[in-house]
């Protein structure tokens, strides 16, 4: 699903295997695109036990993007479910590090 919003482009690719939901986010996750990621993924939470956020091709994340990821993390943790963030590039990891998000997110290569 391509999202072109307010000059930002983001692509979301979702794949569900059993109770595992893989969400690949490509492009920019910012004020314009973050609400679309939230509305696209949240409905799947009822049936998902593990969320894998594949961020290998995410070029940029802003505070709005961080807040959506925090929402995912909080909702899943509250239900005893897990979230894993994969293949984060150096630029995005820098944002996770400086904000302290790295201290609670679970990363995988």
């Amino acid at each position, binding site marked *: 699903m391509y999202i072109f919003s307010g000059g930002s482009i983001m692509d979301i690719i979702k794949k569900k295997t059993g109770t595992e939901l893989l969400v690949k986010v490509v492009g920019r996750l910012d004020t314009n695109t973050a609400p679309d990621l939230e509305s696209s993924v949240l409905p799947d939470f009822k049936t998902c036990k593990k969320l894998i956020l594949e961020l290998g091709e995410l070029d940029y994340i802003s*505070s709005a993007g961080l807040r959506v990821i925090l929402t995912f993390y909080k909702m899943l943790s509250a239900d005893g479910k897990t979230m894993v963030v994969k293949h984060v590039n150096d630029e995005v990891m820098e944002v996770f*590090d400086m904000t302290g998000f*790295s*201290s609670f997110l679970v990363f995988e290569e």
Partner: protein
Amino acid sequence: MDLHSQFILDQYKENINSFKTIEKIVKKELESYVQDFGFLVNSIETRIKTYDSLEGKLELKGYKYQTLKDITDIMGGRVVTFYNDQVELFAAKIEANFDIDWENSVDKRRILKLDQFGYLSRHYICSIPKKMYFDPEHPEINEFRFEIQLRSILQHTWASIHHDTGYKNDIEVPRDILRALNRLAGLLELADDAFSSIRNQLEDYRRRVKQIVKSGDFESVDLDFDSYNAYLDNGGFSEINKKIATINNMEIEPASLRVFFEVFKSLGFHTLKDLDDFAKNNSYLAYEFAVRQFAGKDVDIITETTGPLTLCIVYILSQDMGVNIIKLLLDTVYGPRKNNDTLAKKYTAIGKSMGLGIHASGDEQHE
């Protein structure tokens, strides 16, 4: 199987659903006590005697029972607490909420003579009072009796091992074995009291530490996990987080600071005063460092880890400990990761731009 015992077994089959209802009510009631007390217990178990087990019991002593209602252990519940004084709390709740058949209930502690040691436990024979549950179509639910056992985990250990010997009562046990078992019962009774005493001491200590931390007298308090938590509860690093948050008018998201306890111990802090001095003395540098990190970035959210992490970074750099220690810090806080090395170098570079860590040794070898 004689006809009388068969009659009781038929009654059992007819009433099995009522026992299942009793089991559910009892379990829910016992679990609600745990909620009320606010402490954990080792286990709450309930079970219904199987048909085969009842058949075996009736074969041995079926003559003792007129009807199924005379058998008091068809449904049984057991609470195993961690501490022996918690048994008393459960006992009080059970006595207050269930109908108790006192004639058949046993407090094993009262049976033992003062110079005897052995099984200490409470066995209540109860029934469900109408105020707890009543179904006019099934009045038998309030008539069947059942047993609730209360034990501490050490009493449970002793009873389980004693049971494993296969003897039904002490008279069957060889004298030397019985003596060894009873000696052990005495030892466990002492241990039970000692565990309760340790818990009481710990609770007292935590209360005391909280009061001292509140009073601000940090010098007299050793840095341990309890005093650290009291320090955090008392505001801890909120000042530095608030200061950093002013940079981009950032929102501060709560986060666990547990991992930093290990860091502070590694940095050689022995008292809360060491920790508080560290937080106060490095506050300005940490703010400066954060300005260089955040200024101009589209980031308006941080977690509570940002303050203590930044304080640690500037402290390590100002003490010329070098990039390797920064990497060690990141390994501890984030777990070992490939990019901790790059990040440590980046933080060291920011520090150097502030005039920090310029005399550090080891950086060259690392790079």
